[in-house]
Structure formats: structure tokens, C-alpha cells
């Protein structure tokens, strides 16, 4: 039978029902395309099986920022215009530390925020793809679908699992 290229959407009123449904679907090797929740449900996040790589970007931007700031301070205070303040050495590293510290924090948080926006594709004014308005209130939504669509058999199975997990509403999209 020819697979139908449509996703099945299930709507739950409790996070634990959603988690139960995802567990059962995965037992049957059915791909859960996405889930929409009003707050981070950690059991659902666990199903993703991997963690965000955002912190790596933070570390890299941080190291880069620290190096660049040090280079900048060295250039301005030692090479470009060496001037003594209060009898201190021209290359006075301890007083550079504060600025390196602050600029590292500044650039790291800007870089991480930017990376977050690029990765999630979120930006002010973006049109939300609201599937079901309750997803930001009290509804937990699951989207089941496979690339190329699912066969009639699988669809029946998915529908059954969602029903068994007490989904309030099931529809196709």
C-alpha cells in the first residue's frame, strides 16, 4: 500500500500522558517528529537523546573574546601609545584582567544569544507556526510522521497508541 505523506497530531492535557505516548511510540520504532509543550518537560527532552551544543559555542566565543581583548589592550597600551599611569609598568597585566573578564562575558553572551537565534531560527517579528493555540497554555502536542509518509498499517498503530495514551484529540495534518 502506498504511504500517505501526512503527519498525525495528538493533543494531550497532561505532560505525563505525552511522555507515555512517546515511550510507546518509540517501543514500536515509530519516529516522533516533534512535540510542542507549554513548558520544558524533561522526560520529553530526554527522548531527543542529545544535548544542546550551545555551550560549546559559548566556550569558543569566550576563548576568542578573551584572546582578542588581551591583544587589543596590549596593542593600545604597549605598542600604539605607551603611557605611564601612576608609575605602573606599561604592560600591567593585573589591570588588564578586569577588562578581559568583562569583555569576555559581554561577547560570550552576545555570541551565545546570536547562536541560539540562528539555530532556532527565531527572530523578532517572525510569524509563529501555531499548530494549536493551547500549546502555549495547557496542551501538550505530539507530531508523528516519517519522511516519505507512513503506511496505512503504521497509521492505525499510531492512532491506537495515541488513543490508548488518552489523547484528547487526534487529527491529520
Amino acid at each position: 500500500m502506498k504511504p500517505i505523506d501526512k503527519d498525525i497530531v495528538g493533543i494531550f492535557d497532561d505532560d505525563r500522558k505525552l511522555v507515555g505516548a512517546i515511550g510507546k511510540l518509540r517501543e514500536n520504532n515509530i519516529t516522533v517528529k516533534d512535540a510542542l509543550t507549554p513548558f520544558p518537560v524533561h522526560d520529553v527532552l530526554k527522548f531527543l537523546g542529545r544535548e544542546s551544543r550551545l555551550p560549546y559555542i559559548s566556550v569558543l566565543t569566550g576563548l576568542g573574546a578573551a584572546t582578542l581583548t588581551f591583544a587589543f589592550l596590549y596593542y593600545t597600551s604597549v605598542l600604539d601609545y605607551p603611557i605611564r599611569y601612576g608609575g605602573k609598568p606599561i604592560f600591567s597585566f593585573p589591570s588588564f584582567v578586569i577588562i578581559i573578564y568583562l569583555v569576555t562575558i559581554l561577547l560570550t553572551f552576545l555570541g551565545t544569544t546570536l547562536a541560539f537565534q540562528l539555530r532556532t531560527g527565531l527572530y523578532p517579528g517572525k510569524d509563529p507556526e501555531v499548530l494549536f493555540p493551547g500549546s502555549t497554555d495547557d496542551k501538550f502536542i505530539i507530531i508523528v510522521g516519517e519522511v516519505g509518509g507512513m503506511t496505512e498499517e503504521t497509521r492505525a498503530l499510531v492512532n491506537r497508541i495515541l488513543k490508548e495514551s488518552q489523547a484528547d484529540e487526534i487529527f491529520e495534518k
Partner: protein
Amino acid sequence: MYNTAVRPALIAGNKDYKQVTGEIAGPSERVPAKWWFVAMTISTLALIFGLWAMFVTVVRGLGTWGLNNSVGWGWDIINFVWWIGIGHAGTAFTIFLIVFRAKWAASINRTAEAMTIFAVMNAALFPALHLGRIWLIFFIFPYPNTRGPLWVNFNSPLFDDFLAITTYLLLSLTLWYFGMLPDLATMRDRATSKVKKGVYGFFSMGWVGTVKNWMRYEALAKVLGGLAAPLVVSVHTIVAIDFAVSVIPGWHTTILPPYFFVGAIFSGFAMVLTIMVLIRKAYALTDFITISHLESICKVLIFGSMVIGLAYATEIFIAWYSGVEYEMFVFFRSRITGNFSIAFWIMVVCNAMIPQLLWSKKIRSSLTWLLVISIIINIGMWFERFVIIVSSLAQDYLPSSWVGFTPTIIDVGIYVGTFGIFFCGFLLFIRYIPIIAISEVKGLTRRVPDDELSTNISDKQI
């Protein structure tokens, strides 16, 4: 071996998710009550007074302030330090929530962060106005310029301060705004009018709450919270270094950075307490901001008060122990007795003694007491900055240059004006934005083990 009492539920009332959304978002969707308009009018009047004072300052110069040759830092720097101290509370709550995972902070975090932003904006205003020629403020940016190949002095704590405050303001704004994304999306989906839907929609960045976005969102929160922690410590430390690197008696001590930092958290928490007591009453959020939340703030206040008291005692001891007569003069002849003794003793009583009342559970659970004590603490903290700044400058090494300090109406005007900025901003915030992080609180409402799902949910909150 040990049986510990399970702490009470963080959110009272055994609510479901729909109720949580409704009760928190509700007040931002309705036309506000009469008190809101009254408060807004008063704040706007204060703001107008402040704008007039700032206008006079900019047009006629710093001669309009009460400063003189000896007391070159007066009300402006007192208020700068005071406001930035208040600002520390928001970030402290963020750290509690994200780094220490103290979940009770979820109910207060958003409001405290909003306070931080308005307080830091006010703080930044004072050094800027103190420049005298505010239109030359760009001189502080480090760029190779037409004034010769001269760079700003990177060794100066005043430059560090500029950088610290800018970074702090930007990071606080980012934490606050990104922390709001899911709630703005909730407001968007609940909005009935087209304008509201459009505005909330614009700012919610198209958030719908997909699992991957939640994952990245939490990672972002951890990184930002983790960065805020060292930053918040450094901000008030640098403010303290502004004083400590000088050779003025009473300022030139190494205790200043930790003492300033704890003082900042202390005054910030007091301000949070003042506002929380009022807002929970005005917005009927007693289930979300419970007495137990307020008590937690009180415990931080007791801790802060004791550290502050210890710092006062240490300063006095070191002044004597050092044997430096100028130090001894400032502490014993100028502060404890002498011209500034009234301000000094107000500071000691308000900051180190009165907060000790919070050891009593009865006082901790009485809203009136909390309101009064929290306001007293902020008055005390203002006097602390007054004592530090004015008493050291007014009477230093050279008796021939000893003077007093009297603020002018312009000084007072700018200070009142900053209250206008603070409360106008704050009232607009509570009018249009859910004051408690809805998505955070939802994660706390029902924390029963799965096997009890079908049995008895009530009374079993952990």
C-alpha cells in the same frame, strides 16, 4: 536516620496549568484598577520633576548641584551606588534559579529582573550627568580618535565601571527578554485584539515551544545565568574599587569590595521584598508568592544584615588597629561621634540592628512588618552610601578645606526623577507583561511521582 520535613508546595492551591496561565496572565489583560492610575500619575509627576532637574543640570552645569571643591562626589554618586545596589537583586534571583536551582525563585525572578533593569538604567544616569558635558560622553569609548593617538585609560576603575555597567545592563536585558519568550507567546495566543496579538507576536519571536527549541532555550538560560553570576559579583566590586584605589581616609581599604557586594544584594533583596509584598496584595497572587517565598527573602536579609554589621565592626577595628590617625579621625571623630554621627547611627540601626527582628517567625509572616522593615533597610543603605562618600570627603587631611554638604533642589529633583523612571517603567511592566514566569511556574505546580497520578494528587505536592 534523619527525618526532614518535606518543604511546603512552592505553588499553593493545587492548580492546573490552565488556571496558572489564567491567574498570572489575567491582570495584564484587564484594564488595571484605580490604584494603578493613581500610582502612574504620581510616578509621572516625579519623572517630570526629574526631567526638569536634569534639563537644568545639562543647560546650566554642575554648579547647580550641592557639590563643592572638597565634596566632589555628592548626591549623584550616593544615588548611583544606591540604585546599582538595588539592581543586584534581579540577577541574584536569576543565579538562585538557574545556577543553584532554587526553584522558589521562579515566582520572583521576572519581577526582580525588571527591577534590575530600571535600577541599573537609573544608576547609569548619575555618572553620565556628573560628566557635566553629557554630549561628550562618547569620549569614553575606546577608539583611535582625532584627539591625537590617545586611548582611554584602561587602568582606570572608572572606565571598568563604564564597561561593567554597560555589560550588566545588556546581559540583564537579554536574560529578562529571552526569559519572557514563552510567556509572550502565551500572551500572543491568548490575545483577542489584533493590535495586542501583533505586538506580542512580534516580540515572542515566533515561539511555539517545540522540544528542540526548549532544549536550546534551557541551554541558553544556563549559559546566560552562568555568565551573570561572575558579572554581578564584578559590578559592585568595581564600584567599590572606584573608592578603594583612592587615598581618601575611610575609602582606602581592601574590605570595600566584599562589603559593597553584600550590601548591594542586601539592599536589592529589601527592595524586592517591598515590591513583592505590595504586588502580591494588588494582583492577588498569594498562591504564587506565598509567605514561604517572602520568608526565604527574609533569611537572605538576615544573612546580609549580619555580614554588613560585621563589615562595619571590622572597618572600625581596622581603623584603630592600623594606627593611622586620619583613618581613626574619620571613623571615631567624624562618623561615630561628630558631624556625621546621626547619619552613621541611622545606618547602623537600620542595616545591622532592625533586620535582626526577622529572626522571629511572627514578624517574618506579617506583611506589614515586612513592608516596614524592607523600607527601613533601603533608607539605611542610602545613609550608608551617604556616610561613606560625604564624611570621608568633607573632612580629610587638610582642616582648612573642611566643608559640609547640602544638596540643592536640583540634586533632590534628579533623585526623585529616578524614582519616576523606576516606577513608571515598573508599572508599565506589570501592566503589559505577566509578572511571574508562567512557563517556569507550570513546571512546579504538579510534582507528584507518576505512580500517584491516578490516585490522590492533592496534598501530595513535593
